[in-house]
């Protein structure tokens, strides 16, 4: 009888370990989707921003072109953490330089659409930074599980791979 109970307890523990790995991996996927949503929201604002700035600062074509190119790259990087992180960082930096350049155009700075876009982008920058932190925390939690005994045995057995961090040099949201 005791053998039956011992086997039952072991089986239950194994089920719990397996389920916790699945749950954590899904949480990582879910938080990646969270980043994706925020990045897409921000990317959607770029064409509006470009058209508003073009009307006032046609001389800044290089920055605007770069912005459009980065937006396309970011949207194309779907699911690729490394590529998305690189494009996101560059896009944030380019946006920052664009808003710095806008200081030289008083009419642009006074434009209501431009101000509204700047505010919205600034808010999204905060959301992206937070989503990034959540994703990285989840990845750390998941990777620890994948590496730690006894979950690492299951991870190897059922091919649970370590996930990549969304690495950027900026820890805090860039102030736009």
């Amino acid at each position, binding site marked *: 009888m005791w053998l039956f109970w011992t086997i039952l307890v072991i089986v239950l523990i194994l089920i719990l370990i397996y389920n916790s790995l699945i749950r954590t991996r899904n949480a990582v996927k879910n*938080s990646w989707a*969270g980043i994706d949503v*925020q990045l897409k929201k921000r990317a959607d604002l770029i064409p509006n921003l470009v058209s508003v700035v073009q009307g006032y600062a046609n001389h800044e074509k290089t920055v605007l072109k770069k912005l459009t190119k980065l937006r396309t790259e970011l949207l194309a990087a779907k699911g690729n953490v490394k590529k998305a992180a690189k494009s996101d960082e560059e896009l944030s930096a380019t946006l920052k330089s664009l808003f710095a350049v806008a200081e030289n155009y008083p009419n642009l700075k006074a434009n209501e659409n431009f101000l509204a876009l700047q505010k919205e982008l600034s808010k999204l920058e*905060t959301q992206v930074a*937070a989503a990034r932190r*959540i994703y990285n*925390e989840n990845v750390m*939690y998941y990777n620890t599980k994948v590496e730690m005994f006894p979950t690492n045995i299951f991870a190897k057995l059922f091919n649970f791979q370590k996930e990549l961090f969304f690495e950027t040099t900026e820890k805090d949201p860039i102030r736009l």
Partner: protein
Amino acid sequence: MMLLKPPQDRVNHFKKHLPVPKNVWDPLNAFTPLRIRENCAKLEASFERLQNDSNFLGKFRMQTWLFGIFALLAGIGLSFLFNSLMPGIYGVMICIGSIVVSIIYLRNLSKDLIKFGIAKKENWVYDPDVDTMRARDFILKFPEIFKKGTRNHEVEDQFWGTYKKVEFHSGLFRYVIQRGRDSTRVQTHYYAIKMKSPLKQRFHLYPENFGSKLANLFTKKQISTESIAFNKAFAFSYDGKREEKALDIVATLTPAVQQQLVDLKRKKKLLEVLFTKDCIIFLFSGVLLKKLETNLAKSLEISKNDVDKVRDELQSVLDVSETLVDILS
């Protein structure tokens, strides 16, 4: 105890000079400016008496000690007279009680003066008085967060003000939990933050534990967000069905909001958060200032460290609140 009351003429004097607080946001819509001015005037008059009458503390201490010793002697005498231990025990209790009263009086006065000083500097309103009516109103209006304990609900040390364009109200909330013959006094402090734009759903976050997990199995109210840390830290409660509410709640709990709440919970003993249509209320364990460096019995100087500690405590939550209001507006 008449000695503890500040002279009425000085209270009236301060009342005349203190402005009546106006345009103050209160989550209960029950702000009583005249009563608060009266309480602040009493506090000013009490401190003035300490400053002007150098013998006051000596007289006060002498009176309480004499009263205590008299009670002790009377108790011992009665014990011998009636050949019973009880009067002696009562005598000892009254003796200790009178000394405790004098210590508590000075401690509370110090705390009130520290907070009143901060309120004056920041242009906030401060009410040092204990208020049971407001505690009852809080329980009625926000039962999710304030309906706790069994008796003696009271609110004290309340602030009203604006911090970085965010209107807030904060205070201490106390209650007693009675279990059979045992009673426990619980002290918490809360912050209510006015939202700039209304929130769609009213919901309550409380600490996730085994009990809440079990309850959620039956009520099916738990909502999973993308953050593992957030899901481990908080359980949800709200009226209505999950299918009807989850979308709006998740829309409120954006990544930035989740991250702010998780960070706040890591930094402080955050017990609960209530999101209502027009405000967010945070409830924390304990009081704003536990150990006091200020000792009015020794010196009438208010310790700068005490002031900094209270201000830092307040600002740490208000900074998060400001970010949250900004994100959610």
